[in-house]
């Protein structure tokens, strides 16, 4: 091996080490946001933590397949949702029944009814929903719907990005998202009238 060649190797190695560390730093910077999604697409906090670790193990192992400059959050999310599907097939297999839907506006109507004549503004109406009601309503959604909702509303992914992450058509993202929101608002609406009764 000539001196020149080994020098080049060293430079190549240093460069690779640098890109790798940069990748790792970038991936870790997004961990909090990735966790937001993981927390709600996994069944429990424990599942979410395991899922995060599996995701990062895989991400760090296959960092070379990440193309620098592209959306690393979406790339990580793709790994995470795939791993979650593998886990999900083993675990929470729940029939995706399709309950009757009311329009998305039923929640607003219900809250207004509950407020009666007091003429509360929108802020006040919303405060009638408790945190636990919201957390439960989200957890109760069929998981195909919930995944889409969480990616769009918590992960701030576009329809297109969500479609790529889940490897489904954009039209499917839109219809699941729409149904997810309706179902969620419907179960929140139900909680309002229950509490009033």
């Amino acid at each position: 091996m000539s001196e020149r060649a080994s020098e080049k190797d060293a430079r190549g190695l240093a460069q690779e080490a640098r890109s790798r560390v940069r990748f790792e730093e970038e991936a870790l910077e997004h961990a909090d946001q990735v966790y937001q999604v993981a927390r709600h697409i996994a069944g429990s906090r424990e599942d979410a933590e395991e899922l995060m670790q599996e995701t990062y193990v895989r991400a760090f192992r296959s960092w070379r397949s990440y193309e620098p400059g592209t959306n690393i959050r979406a790339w990580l999310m793709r790994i995470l949702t795939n791993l979650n599907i593998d886990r999900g097939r083993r675990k929470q297999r729940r029939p995706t029944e399709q309950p009757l839907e009311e329009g998305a506006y039923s929640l607003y109507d219900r809250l207004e009814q509950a407020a009666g004549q007091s003429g509360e503004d929108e802020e006040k109406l919303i405060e009638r929903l408790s945190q636990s009601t919201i957390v439960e309503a989200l957890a109760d959604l069929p998981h195909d719907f919930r995944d889409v909702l969480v990616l769009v509303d918590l992960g701030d992914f576009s329809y297109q990005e969500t479609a790529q992450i889940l490897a489904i058509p954009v039209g499917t993202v839109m219809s699941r998202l729409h149904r997810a929101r309706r179902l969620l608002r419907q179960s929140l609406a139900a909680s309002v009238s229950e509490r009033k009764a």
Partner: protein
Amino acid sequence: MSETPCRGCEELLELYLDGELAEEEVREAEEHLDACGFCHRHYRFERLLRAYMRQAISEPIPPELSSKLAALASKTEQ
């Protein structure tokens, strides 16, 4: 208080809030929101609800998990 002329706008508002409308449609949606009290109230409600739900369900990453993830870096490849 319970006029129901614009229930059909639900999907338009949803796309608008998601930032998924084309430029032209955004303008139309905004013009409509300015002109229609019913949709304006629902738009406002929906925006607040989304923000409220986000706060209700977001949970910071546990610090131990952050440390575990950091510890995974640069040692997964042999």
